[in-house]
């Protein structure tokens, strides 16, 4: 009797624990059945009549960063508006930037449906195209079934943004997202402080330096120029943008990004590659470059160090993780960022320091004077960011229908870029917008458009952008501002030298140099010479560099031959 009781007790307990253990798995199972249902739905769609309302389908869209405030409201508004036409449900997944690529890969590996993914050549896109993982989108563009795409993406624009597929031919593998070919770097400064020191608005470089001196003198606890620990938007742009720089493109030198930390410079003469140099390369390998590019030049680093000594920048910018936050909290007198962020910065500064006035000074002298073409603006006329459709997506047609809708009209586009009209923003004229009075900007919808909506045909500027800056927007929107790179259209296939490119010392090279960009090393010329020596004595690295260069030369020459033949 007693044994029996124990037996059943044991059985019950193990059953309970067992069900607990397997609960997680069954959750996953449910998911897949749902997904495969979604898949079969779309199959039916294809066969059913196009003109009738399609079956309801959920699109899984992967973007990066944080989910914007009020985003669900916008998606609900979209679903309400298109219930009778597209009949789509949108399931957006936002992933922190550091995890994004891995999460995308894991989702695909696990067989989860991803219908639209944000990707870019500086991220994962080239690899995935080489592996044939992204859908060839050629048939959707210039197709009357997708009028929105036809309207928003012209032939030339598409041709500039094609990638070489596994078949060796150029194809469209992503919906190009961009407004301008370049970003206008701007120094954001505290106009109210300038006024306090008796200065007018900053219009020249000398005035900028005088402003920094005044900050040092009058506000000892204020950082004159706050720079971020990765060196982006830092002192290099400010200093090089305001001194006489030799013209690289006129000398026939073109930069090519080969991988996340590897950049090549190729000297091209008469459609032939005469010399190539790479990140971490030996100094002797640039000797064949035309003057003055045949010698290493460390004067910029020396000037940065001078700024460090004067106190214009922090002693240890390497710990400054959030430069924008420091500026908008009122702890710094200026910072560098793209002009496109003016609204966000203005709003955050006003929230942090209510009495502050934001001033904008265009960083580079050539841009300030609207020089055309601008030698600093070498472009391959390729957009930076794309929307891709993984090969495994069963809803490619529906996904492109959504993208088509997005670019069909200004109103559709604005819904995702700016939010709900009247609630999140109001129109001003045809091509401007403003935020409704009394709205809390920190809680308002604010979407990073480069991930989904940016397009040169649908630009809407904030009405708060001062008139003299609107001219700069026109300036960077003008194709004449840019110098077309001789290697525009060339896309390096990393596959043959993948292992060489993965040499961890490439990261070390850029990381070693970072300290100089931040002005943290005493004698930059001496230090860099020592670093150069260290890289040159790294025989494994040099060997890999030579292999990569040989491959690049081969691919580049094949491309140039093809160009001149065509």
């Amino acid at each position, binding site marked *: 009797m007693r044994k029996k009781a*124990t*037996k059943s007790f*044991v*059985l019950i*307990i*193990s059953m309970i*624990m*067992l069900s*607990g*253990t*397997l609960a997680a*798995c069954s959750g996953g199972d449910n998911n897949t059945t749902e997904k495969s249902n979604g898949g079969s739905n779309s199959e039916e769609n294809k066969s059913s009549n196009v003109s009738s309302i399609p079956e309801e389908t959920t699109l899984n869209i992967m973007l990066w960063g944080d989910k914007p405030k009020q985003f669900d409201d916008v998606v609900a508004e979209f679903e309400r508006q298109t219930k009778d036409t597209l009949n789509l449900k949108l399931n957006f997944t936002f992933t922190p930037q*550091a995890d994004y*690529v*891995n999460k995308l*890969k*894991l989702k*695909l*590996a696990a*067989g989860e449906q991803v219908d639209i993914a944000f990707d870019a050549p500086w*991220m*994962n896109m080239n*690899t995935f195209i080489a*592996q044939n*993982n992204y859908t060839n989108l050629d048939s959707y563009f210039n197709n009357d079934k997708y009028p929105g795409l036809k309207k928003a993406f012209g032939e030339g624009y598409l041709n500039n943004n094609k990638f070489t597929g596994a078949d060796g031919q150029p194809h469209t593998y992503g919906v190009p997202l961009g407004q301008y070919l370049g970003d206008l770097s701007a120094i954001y400064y505290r106009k109210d402080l300038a006024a306090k020191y008796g200065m007018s608005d900053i219009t020249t470089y000398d005035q900028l330096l005088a402003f920094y001196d005044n900050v040092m003198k009058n506000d000892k606890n204020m950082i004159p120029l706050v720079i971020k*620990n*990765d060196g982006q938007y830092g002192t290099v742009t400010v200093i090089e943008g305001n001194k006489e720089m030799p013209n690289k493109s006129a000398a026939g030198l073109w930069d090519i990004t080969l*991988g*996340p*930390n590897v950049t090549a410079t190729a000297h091209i003469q008469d459609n032939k590659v005469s010399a190539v140099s790479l990140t971490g390369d030996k100094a002797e390998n640039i000797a064949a470059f035309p003057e003055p590019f045949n010698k290493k030049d460390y004067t910029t680093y020396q000037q940065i160090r001078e700024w460090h000594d004067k106190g214009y920048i*922090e*002693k*240890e910018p*390497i*710990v400054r*993780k959030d430069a924008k936050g420091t500026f908008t909290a009122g702890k710094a007198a200026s910072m560098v960022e793209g002009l496109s962020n003016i609204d966000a910065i203005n709003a955050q500064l006003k929230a942090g320091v209510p009495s502050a006035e934001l001033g904008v000074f265009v960083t580079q002298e050539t841009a300030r004077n609207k020089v055309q073409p601008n030698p600093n603006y070498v472009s391959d006329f390729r957009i930076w960011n794309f929307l891709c459709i*993984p*090969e*495994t997506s069963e809803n490619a047609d529906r996904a492109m229908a959504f993208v088509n809708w997005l670019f069909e009209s200004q109103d559709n586009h604005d819904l995702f870029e700016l939010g709900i009209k009247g609630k999140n923003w109001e129109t001003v004229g045809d091509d401007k917008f403003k935020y409704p009075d009394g709205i809390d900007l920190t809680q308002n919808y604010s979407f990073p458009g480069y991930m989904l909506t940016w397009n040169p045909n649908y630009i809407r500027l904030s009405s708060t952008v001062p008139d003299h800056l609107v001219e700069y927007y026109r300036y960077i929107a003008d194709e004449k501002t840019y110098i077309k790179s001789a290697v525009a259209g060339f896309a390096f296939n990393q596959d043959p030298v993948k*292992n060489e*490119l*993965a*040499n*961890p*010392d490439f*990261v*070390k090279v850029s*990381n*070693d140099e*970072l*300290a100089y960009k931040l002005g*943290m090393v005493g004698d930059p010329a001496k230090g860099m010479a020592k670093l150069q020596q260290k890289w040159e004595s*790294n025989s*494994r*690295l040099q060997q*890999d560099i030579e292999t990569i260069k040989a491959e690049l030369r081969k691919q580049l020459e094949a491309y140039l031959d093809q160009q001149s033949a065509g």
Partner: protein
Amino acid sequence: MRAAIKSKGLRDLVYNRYLYLLALPAVLFSIVFAYLPMIGVVIAFQDFNPIKGLWDSEWIGLKNFEFFFRGQDWLIITYNTVLYNLMFIATGTLMSLTLAIMLTELGKNAIVRTMQSIMILPNFISWPIVGLFSVTFFTADTGVINHFLSSIGAGTIDFYTNADVWPPILVLMNLWKTAGFGAIVYMAAIVGIDKEMYEAARIDGASRLQSIFRITLPMLKSTIVMLFLLSLGGIFGGNLDMIFSLVGDNSFLASRTDTIDTYVFRALRTSGSLGMTQAISLYQSIVGFILVVAANKIAGKLDKDSALF
């Protein structure tokens, strides 16, 4: 029928089948969540393509492993990793033991309990947050420590350009964060020691220190060895969250602070090759596994009761 089962273990299994049933969920749990995922190890030997999946990706042998040894610094980095972990294990064990003994000797009252809670609190603060706080302590411009040093007239220390100060800092930070929590394990073991032994010792005239060194520590020996063996398994792990939060991409400090994890993370964070990442963690696990098995053998040779298995 029963005589047919020759193996003793199997006979035991059949005889006590209902009791063994209790282990079934745990066994299944390990199979599902620890052993099945191990199939993923194959991507260390593949040019992994997520869409082709585990079985159809191209096999490339040991190419993924080469990546780590391509760099110039892999020896320094391995050395740093092992050194930090040994220091962490040694100082951590010592500190946790001391704290545990001190607290139990104090008896049980409100103050001791409060102290105990305060001690384990740092364990729940994540490294990125500690990293943010540490900046306010260490920076040259506004750091608390340098402020203090200059106010008493001593020279300042440039923490973020001087690599040599970081090993002790990391060891101290690790102690601050983990020692209190580790002490709890030892306190539990001390509570388990037979109180009669202490009473008998006291009657025989043993002092407090003598009780600690002659009774408490010897009784804790197997616990100490067990925890040591368990931590050996992670000796090739690189404390990524700790070091990256505190140091980041600072190349001045890399020579003394770079470990396998931070090095690999930095090299792969943008390209993100799953195969190479998997190869490195496989390498770390295998070395860890060998160390645990070897150390266990040695521990068993020296003292039978201390071995884990």
